[in-house]
């Protein structure tokens, strides 16, 4: 229970002790600690290994910009790789391990890479591993891949759930430091609806880490009070532990709230919530990030940003070292010395403005000493470094606005063309002193409230000093001979940047891509500007001449699971269930996905061994007695108006104008490019009302296109459309005994062939008054009807049909039997109308009327589409009748070479026909209609099949259509 580096003060609860495990070792900390502060309190300095050279690394920052201290958090399937120890809130029982090493962290064998570093310079892999060629796949790349990556995924399903939520506000304030809190207070007091989000678990931002006073109080106390006031206001929503990760169009912001990451377990609630925030205005108060300075071996455990040292001392009551040195180029860095002195820790100050440089450091697994430009060597276990502060302009760049260089603070500040509605305030805007920050932020909040017409009193800004902020650019210690790190995580050194320049990779983007600068998990938050500055220095240009840095979402990485939210597993997409689904489930149905629908594909009876048994029986029953199939998934569109017939005549390629009332017609739709689009039937129920069916697959898009035609092409036609797909349950009743069954269902309707012939339709009632529609249409080729009732009666209807048809031998059939029967009949379906085929190819050119201007007609006659030697739909049967055909085979003439030039088409659909007793197929074959009787090859190398087939008519059964008319 010993925490050797714990000192007085800090914003932690010392009364409560939390136990946690680090690399299987039990340690202690307190509420208010992060994993990083607790590790430091326990005197641990080596916490990780770098990506490329496996250099020993310690904690470098105290925030989300951390490049070094990445850990694997939690165990088993909850293991979370690459987690920044600096942002992990300590909880009791926390389990974390270091990552990216082979063997123990202290003795990582991969550290041999560091010895090879001279040969692993920038872009080395582009220049070698090429000979002999075969070695790349077999040897080199597997070696490279074996050492790739940082942390490990568990390989198992993420056990946690994630939610999505939507929020609306007048103003989103991003960041709850002094600027964010002040502006949120002003805007909220004024009356605006405000959302305040901050990535930290404690309000106040840098106020918690510094020794500033606001008014007469310590900054951290002021922040608590401000947050309390905001929390009590009904027009404010506070989002702690929430990172606004991206700015999207029209005032939409993406934010990730970590709901339970600070708890031992989720307790069944969502781990994180991904918010989409719609806000009219946004105030970016994201603060600034400190930069390092490049000098020899500046990456050792114990070397830390100066602001982070102050965080650990002031906020967490932890000292990162006992012999501390400070290397700074600016006034702010000097606060480190005074803050530590106040805790009784002496600091050696090395100020570049006084000409003193740190040239070199020693101590492989923890800093031991530093060597200065004047030759002195100083013993130190902690070196605080400050190269100045860079405003966090990230979100201002998400719409590709470019930041601009500001010489006075040696940093990029937000550019002019910000995302609409965004204002930047505080350090993020380049305002670097506390007094100015709170004054500006108060004014910004007040102004936004008044922009919304609120005139409430906004109070006044707290008073604070404008502490000195003098900085003199200093990037790179020239005297250093050892490697000087710029990007700690990806191991990019100043030498790499020099080499990149030498090899011509001089634009910022080339530099990034060639050296991998800024491409690591920290997105170069502490490295990019340093790298850019060094490139500028090497090439003798100014920083703005050299380039600028751009940032893309997300601000900090967001779990993929959070983006996916609840749309996972079976909930990936909703299920659409047919009206008779429950009955089908109770009666042995196996279901199959058809788009979002689940459809019964067959009904298994006791004793049936495989699906073929069931399907064959269903086909035989339908062809010999009567079968019933739920066809409700077909798109159904009610079309009404005086011009309804005219409208249909324009959207179908065949004629519809003169379809009599009480009749149904098969219709073919083309796209405007003339290719076949969809087919179905339209039934004329009255002079002004049609009911159209579409295929299941195209139900949504056909309706969309019809609305387009109605609203945009012919806006004055008197016609209205409504989709009724979900309103009606529809059943196909097919087979020689279908008429008897239907006659038992309908209320006093004469369904004789004379009174209700093939392609008749009517509205009627069934089963004693239930409204219904009856159509005499047939997909199976049998005497068949489709009967529709309101969807809520669907499950009863199929039971009524089964009961009424029991003595007739009725059986339900599924989509497989439906498919078999349509292949037997040679009816086209989705495999044939696949968007690449024409009416001509399918033998339906007679359905493209040349006498009218329907959608697609004009384009359907283009030369390549009207070729007489083109693909044509024909039927196939195997020469050896015992062989099963398979779809997807390509056709080759016998003796022709097996290549693309001799490819003559493909098999679209196959079935085993119980009636014929052998396999049959449909397919497109070049000039197929002239080739009936010819024997060709159905060649399917991916299935290892090569089958001789005989070309025949696509109408395998009842080609004259006697049955359906009977």
């Amino acid at each position, binding site marked *: 229970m010993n925490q050797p580096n714990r000192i007085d003060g800090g914003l932690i609860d010392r009364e409560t002790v939390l136990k946690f495990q680090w690399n299987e070792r039990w340690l202690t900390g307190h509420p208010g600690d992060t994993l990083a502060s607790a590790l430091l309190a326990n005197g641990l300095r080596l916490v990780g290994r770098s990506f490329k050279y496996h250099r020993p690394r310690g904690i470098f920052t105290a925030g989300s910009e951390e490049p070094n201290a990445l850990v694997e958090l939690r165990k088993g399937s909850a293991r979370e790789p690459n987690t920044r120890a600096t942002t992990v809130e300590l909880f009791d029982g926390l389990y974390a391990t270091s990552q990216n090493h082979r063997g123990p962290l202290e003795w990582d064998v991969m550290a041999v890479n560091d010895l090879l570093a*001279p040969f692993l310079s920038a872009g080395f*892999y582009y220049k070698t591993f090429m000979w002999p060629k075969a070695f790349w796949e077999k040897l080199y790349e597997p070696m490279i891949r074996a050492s790739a990556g940082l*942390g490990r995924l568990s390989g198992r399903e993420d056990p946690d759930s994630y939610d999505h939520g939507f929020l609306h506000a007048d103003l989103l304030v991003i960041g709850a430091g002094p600027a964010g809190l002040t502006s949120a207070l002003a805007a909220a007091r004024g009356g605006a609806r405000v959302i305040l989000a901050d990535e930290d678990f404690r309000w106040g931002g840098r106020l918690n880490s510094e020794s500033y006073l606001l008014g007469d109080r310590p900054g951290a106390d002021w922040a608590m009070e401000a947050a309390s006031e905001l929390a009590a206001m009904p027009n404010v929503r506070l989002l702690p532990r929430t990172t606004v990760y991206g700015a999207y169009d029209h005032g939409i912001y993406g934010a990730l709230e970590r709901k339970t990451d600070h708890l031992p377990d989720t307790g069944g609630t969502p781990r994180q919530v991904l918010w989409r925030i719609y806000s009219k205005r946004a105030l970016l108060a994201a603060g600034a990030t400190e930069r390092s300075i490049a000098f020899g071996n500046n990456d050792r455990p114990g070397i830390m940003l100066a602001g982070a040292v102050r965080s650990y001392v002031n906020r967490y009551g932890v000292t990162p070292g006992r012999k501390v040195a400070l290397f700074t180029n600016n006034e702010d860095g000097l606060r480190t010395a005074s803050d530590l002195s106040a805790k009784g820790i002496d600091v050696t100050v090395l100020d570049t403005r006084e000409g003193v440089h740190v040239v070199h450091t020693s101590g492989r697994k923890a800093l031991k000493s530093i060597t200065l430009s004047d030759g002195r060597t100083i013993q130190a276990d902690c070196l605080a470094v400050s190269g100045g502060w860079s405003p966090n302009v990230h979100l201002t760049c998400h719409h590709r606005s470019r930041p601009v260089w500001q010489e006075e603070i040696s940093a990029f500040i937000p550019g002019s063309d910000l995302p609409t509605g965004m204002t930047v305030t505080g350090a993020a805007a380049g305002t670097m002193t506390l007094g100015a920050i709170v004054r500006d932020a108060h004014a910004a909040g007040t102004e936004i409230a008044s922009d919304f017409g609120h005139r409430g009193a906004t109070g006044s800004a707290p008073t604070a000093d404008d502490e000195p902020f003098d900085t003199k650019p200093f990037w790179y210690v020239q005297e250093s001979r050892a490697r000087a790190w710029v990007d700690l995580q990806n191991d990019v050194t100043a030498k790499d940047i020099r080499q990149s320049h030498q090899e011509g990779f001089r634009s910022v983007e080339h530099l990034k891509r060639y050296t991998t600068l800024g491409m690591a998990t920290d997105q170069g938050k502490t490295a990019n500007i340093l790298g850019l500055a060094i490139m500028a220095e090497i090439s003798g240009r100014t920083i703005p001449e050299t380039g600028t840095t751009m940032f*893309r979402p997300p601000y900090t990485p967001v779990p993929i699971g959070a983006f996916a939210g609840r749309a996972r*597993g079976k909930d990936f997409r909703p299920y659409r269930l047919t009206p008779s689904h429950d009955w089908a489930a109770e009666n042995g149905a196996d279901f199959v996905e058809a788009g979002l629908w689940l459809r019964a594909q067959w009904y298994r009876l006791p004793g049936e061994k495989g699906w073929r048994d069931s399907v064959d029986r269903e086909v035989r029953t339908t062809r010999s007695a009567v079968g019933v199939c739920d066809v409700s998934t077909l798109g159904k569109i009610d079309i009404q108006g005086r011009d309804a017939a005219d409208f249909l005549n324009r959207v179908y390629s065949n004629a519809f104008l003169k379809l009599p009332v009480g009749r149904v017609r098969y219709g073919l739709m083309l796209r405007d*490019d003339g290719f076949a689009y969809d087919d179905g039937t339209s039934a004329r129920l009255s002079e002004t009302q049609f009911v159209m069916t579409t295929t299941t697959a195209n139900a949504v898009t056909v309706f969309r296109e019809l609305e387009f035609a109605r609203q945009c092409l012919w806006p004055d036609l008197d016609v209205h459309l409504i989709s009724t797909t979900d309103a009606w349950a529809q059943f196909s009743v097919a087979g020689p005994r279908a008429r008897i069954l239907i006659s038992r269902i309908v209320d006093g309707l004469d369904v004789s062939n004379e009174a209700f012939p093939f392609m008749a339709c009517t509205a009627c009632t069934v089963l004693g008054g239930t409204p219904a529609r009856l159509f005499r249409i047939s997909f199976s080729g049998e005497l068949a009807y489709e009967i529709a009732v309101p969807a809520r009666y669907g499950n009863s209807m199929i039971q009524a049909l089964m009961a009424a048809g029991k003595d007739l031998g009725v059986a339900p059939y599924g989509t497989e039997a439906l498919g078999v029967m349509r292949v037997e009949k040679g009816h086209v379906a989705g*495999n044939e109308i696949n968007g690449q085929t024409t009416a001509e190819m399918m033998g339906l050119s007679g359905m493209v009327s040349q006498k009218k201007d329907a959608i697609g007609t004009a384009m359907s006659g283009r030369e*390549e589409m009207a070729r007489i030697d083109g693909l044509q739909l024909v039927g196939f049967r195997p020469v050896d009748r015992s062989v099963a055909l398979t779809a997807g085979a390509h056709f080759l003439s016998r003796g022709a070479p097996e290549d693309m030039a001799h490819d003559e088409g493909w098999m679209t659909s196959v079935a085993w026909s119980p009636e014929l007793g052998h396999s049959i197929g449909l397919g497109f074959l070049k000039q197929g209609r002239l080739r009936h009787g010819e024997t060709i090859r159905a060649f399917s190398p991916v299935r290892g099949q090569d089958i001789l087939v005989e070309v025949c008519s696509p109408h395998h059964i009842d080609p004259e259509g006697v049955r359906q008319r009977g």
Partner: protein
Amino acid sequence: MRYSALRLLKEGLTGNTGWAPAWRDPDPRPAYDIVIVGGGGHGLSTAYYLAKEFGEQNVAVLEKGWLGSGNIGRNTTIIRSNYLLEGNQPFYELSLKLWEGLEQDFNYNAMVSQRGILNLYHSDAQRDAYVRRGNAMHLSGADAILVDRPQLREMCPFLDFDNARFPIHGALWQPRGGTVRHDAVAWGYARGADSRGVDIVQNCEVTGFRIENGICSGVETTRGAIRARKVAVCVAGSSGRVMEQAGLRLPIESHVLQAFVSEGLKPVIPGVITFGAGHFYVSQSDKGGLVFGGDIDGYNTYAQRGNLPVVEDVCEGGMAIMPMIGRARLLRMWGGVMDMSMDGSPFIDRTPIEGLYFNGGWCYGGFKATPASGYCYAQLLATDQPHETARHYRLDRFRRGAPIDEKGAGAQPNLH
């Protein structure tokens, strides 16, 4: 300077101070035989093959930004030749063959990594469509294997075989598919072209064409006028903007495709995997990041950034097939502007203006085509004869009614 392990050793021992620039940084000359507009992957590979295979060295590549700054610098790095149609498949197979010999050819390791591509299928109909496709691949001389569910489970045990909304039945596998280090492709071609005398002029934007009497004789640029016998446009997402300066309307819309990369992870995914019941494709880079993408946002844009609905859709697709990635974090997302054509297939053709050539309409499949596109464009420029495998990529194919529509989606770019 020839790159080799030996050279690396020598430089390593002498402080890496001897490396020469990978390319020159020349000012444009007043005239060239051929001016290529666009210094992306296709433009640079065109220049490389013009110089290397067709003896054309008096060539300039004009790039408005930095070389490789187009879609070659932002894509999901996948290579494959698993197309269906006769108009496409032989071309992409040529491209894959060129990838296979590329690094030795241009002495630059672009890390062509043929770890295979798996297209998952989720229904019998989809399996049959993949069988048709796989067979077409075989007929073009490519490789394709139908993998059933048990085999797939062995290859990718992490896929969701037990709880998926759209069950995974199997996959079409092209073992020769894979990934390439995309930036290195641009750099390798640039270096190879430069060393053969091609001027690669960066920060040089074309602002107009010199066209008189239907003949194009050069370009106006931000760095002065440049004469040329032939002007070859090759600007992907900027096709509409550039060709408008020549007064041509194209069968192309510009759309944004977002792509994503996760934090670096120890290797978990063997090759490229694509989801068949949603929009998601993924591979893992040699650095360990999961590189993934999905559908285009779907609206015309030149803004190089997308919106959240597609981000969520893509991640949903990922979680649907591999729920182990829930705790992997998305590190960066970016958008590239795609030249979406009316049938989803590209153009490599002369234009109605003599001396002006056009290469574009690559939709979001341009990366894998980089070598063949450059090769075929170079042949067209050098000989005025289309390459055998690119002969269908004509601008007039819609007039003739011969679209190359792999998806059967019709004349609407955002459906391809």
